């Protein structure tokens, strides 16, 4: 069987698996958040935390709870890193330096999981487990909670209440992420992912030399890293590390894990707003753009343009033999399209245009399908913009699912689409304009520019993948990166919740033949147009000086 055919089959199996999960998982998630019954353990849990699960919050209060939780998380994680030498299973690691600890805390709380450290030489098992992995769960939970609050804005009429943040995050973790993680972890263990508490030690190798043997509770963390679209690797090499991703099957399964929730959430959305066609439209747009990106990356990697790759005869630099081009391209397209940011091959060494497609996946705003919750709320914000433009073109005050897009709604949607480019462009420009940050560049010329633009695009979209040649464990990148990740994540979330609040206050307008249909190919085309032209084009100048300057000759 030729490699290309095998690659297509691998992709086909993945799409089939995602399609099989779309309805059951989507419906299940809708039930989780629509149910007004609390499980007994949850009630005990709420008592423990001193929370009234019955309180229905206004958007402002919902946002304050979310910010309080995230703020406390940053602080707690920072402290944990700083005192890790006093914790059990520290594996001999020193306290994490303050700038790096700040960056890492911001990174994991924002679901970015940008890593300026190498796991195996920086973090002890306790910090990995009780600090980083906990954030892998709850940061994904926060994303899903905010999405659900926005969806309630579409569902509800004439109310200013969006639900209860504490209940939403608890259910996201307890009823969704945790059970799926248990199942996923067992599958990963069977596939060969390690899970032990053995400290790093040396063994005598075959030829008599010494071999470092690393350990750790990897499987339990690996699964949520993908499932929650976090992407922070236990080891520096992330999912390229054989202990994190030992086989072609584990590779396929990890890709499946990162896609399964984002691709099923449109179903949840459709279910909650009472129109499954809305879900099908959004998932079709997601699927179309994701498949396009995977296809393009695969194509560019097969062609292996670039002097060094041409000399080598293939684009295998920074890739593992067991995954090959198809497994690496599929992973790269999926990890950047889902805001996961885990890597099984190193993007800095990808072909110029293969790397550019990965970069573009993030530039589109992490919406196809994007991260858990965050992807769909991002896509909904863009759908609001699309509805606005399209709605005007059919001669009515634009409305989405019966909710009018008036100046207030537009204000929040506009603020949302401003936040990310602001973080990305200003961060990149400062790094390129100042002399010190430039020194971190590994590859000279346009590729170096791409490294920096990629870094801020990744942090500004809470992805976390990197053109890892850029040496970012420096004061500037730790500090600025932390700020960019926090602003991009939480400013966006505040705008999303504010929009949800103003949507909930509205009375639904009944649909008629004069209403813009937000399902069907016409709207899908318009939405893709808005995503590509309105969002993507913002970065065209940067792309021209980076990948285009490098790749066109």
């Amino acid at each position: 069987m030729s490699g290309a055919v095998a690659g297509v089959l691998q992709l086909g199996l993945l799409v089939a698996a995602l399609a099989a999960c779309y309805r059951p998982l989507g419906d299940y998630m809708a039930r989780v958040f629509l149910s007004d019954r609390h499980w007994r353990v949850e009630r005990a849990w709420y008592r423990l935390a001193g929370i009234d699960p019955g309180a229905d919050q206004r958007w402002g209060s919902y946002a304050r709870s979310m910010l309080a939780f995230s703020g406390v998380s940053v602080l707690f994680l920072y402290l944990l890193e700083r005192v890790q030498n006093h914790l059990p299973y520290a594996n001999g690691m020193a306290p994490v330096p303050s700038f790096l600890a700040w960056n890492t805390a911001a990174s994991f709380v924002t679901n970015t999981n940008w890593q300026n450290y190498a796991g195996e030489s920086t973090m002890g098992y306790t910090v990995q487990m009780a600090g980083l992995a906990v954030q892998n769960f709850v940061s994904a939970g926060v994303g899903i909670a905010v999405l659900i609050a926005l969806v309630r804005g579409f569902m509800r009429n004439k109310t200013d209440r969006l639900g209860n943040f504490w209940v939403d995050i608890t259910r996201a973790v307890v009823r969704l992420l945790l059970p799926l993680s248990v199942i996923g972890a067992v599958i990963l263990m069977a596939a060969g992912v390690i899970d032990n508490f053995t400290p790093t030690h040396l063994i005598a190798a075959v030829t008599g030399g010494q071999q470092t043997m690393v350990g750790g509770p990897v499987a339990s963390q690996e699964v949520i890293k993908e499932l929650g679209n976090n992407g922070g690797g236990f080891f520096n090499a992330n999912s390229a590390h054989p202990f994190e991703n030992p086989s072609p099957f584990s590779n396929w399964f990890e890709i499946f894990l990162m896609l399964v929730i984002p691709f099923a959430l449109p179903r949840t959305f459709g279910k909650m707003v009472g129109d499954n066609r809305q879900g099908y439209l959004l998932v079709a747009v997601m699927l179309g753009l994701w498949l396009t990106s995977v296809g393009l990356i695969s194509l560019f990697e097969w062609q292996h343009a670039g002097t060094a790759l041409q000399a080598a005869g293939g684009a295998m630099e920074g890739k593992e033999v067991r995954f090959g081009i198809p497994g690496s391209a599929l992973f790269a397209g999926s990890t950047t399209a889902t805001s996961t940011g885990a890597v099984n091959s190193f993007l800095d060494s990808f072909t110029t245009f293969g790397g550019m497609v990965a970069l573009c996946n993030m530039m589109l705003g992490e919406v196809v399908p994007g991260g858990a919750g965050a992807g769909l709320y991002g896509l909904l914000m863009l759908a609001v913009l699309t509805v606005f433009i399209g709605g005007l073109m059919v001669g009515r005050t634009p409305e989405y699912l019966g909710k009018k897009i008036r100046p207030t709604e537009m204000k929040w949607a506009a603020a949302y689409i401003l936040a990310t480019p602001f973080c990305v462009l200003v961060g990149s420009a400062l790094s390129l304009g100042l002399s010190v940050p430039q020194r971190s560049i590994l590859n000279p010329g346009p590729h170096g520019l791409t490294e920096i633009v990629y870094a801020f695009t990744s942090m500004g979209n809470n992805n976390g993948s990197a053109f890892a040649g850029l040496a970012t464990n420096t004061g500037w990148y730790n500090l600025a990166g932390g700020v960019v990740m926090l602003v991009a994540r939480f400013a966006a979330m505040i705008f999303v919740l504010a929009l949800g609040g103003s949507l909930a206050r509205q009375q639904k307008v009944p649909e008629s033949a004069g209403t813009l249909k937000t399902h069907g190919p016409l709207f899908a085309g318009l939405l893709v147009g808005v995503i590509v032209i309105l969002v993507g084009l913002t970065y065209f100048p940067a792309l021209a000086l980076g990948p285009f300057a490098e790749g066109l000759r």
Partner: protein
Amino acid sequence: MDRLPSLLRQHIAALRLLLAFTVLCGLVYPVALWGVAQVAFKNQANGSLVSVNGKVVGSSLLCQEFVDARGNPLPQYFQPRPSNATSGAKTDYGCDAGYSGASNLGPDNSALLRTVKARQRQIAAFDHVPVAQIPPDAVTSSASGLDPDISPQNADIQVARVAAARHLPTATVRALVGKYTQGRSLGFLGEPRVDVVTLNIALDELPGQGK
């Protein structure tokens, strides 16, 4: 005045909830799964270790360098892919699991181009094969630096040299390589590959090849 207590209350609730999550997701969950792993998947969970004469000599998932003390490749062993997993110390020639990572050199990077060319020359000389026959994985460094596998073509160009160094018929070595070649899982997942560590151990275990 009214605001402060409510804000404070919210932060206290947040902290209590975070601690509860830390216990649940950070302690109970990983420890429970560790238990499952140690009971049900003992081999995998501990790194798919391989032993020779009851002594652990490595993992079938991690590459090892088969070099002499000065870093020169040993001709009697199949050589893994170039590795960037190194502490940077002079005697650390790669495949150091303490330092997983890639070169991160760009596709047009001149340093990478030089490195690739140098590796090709070195392999051509070492294995007596024309450069055109050297597959890409042999001259490019892996993503993790710990890639245990090489492509079947890469193994193929090394067969003659290994056989000569071990005074074995090439057919014997080629047969062993065939035995240790894994196809695509389910016929289409991943790429065909040969695990270097287990292959080399198998070579050593051939009759008359003990160290």
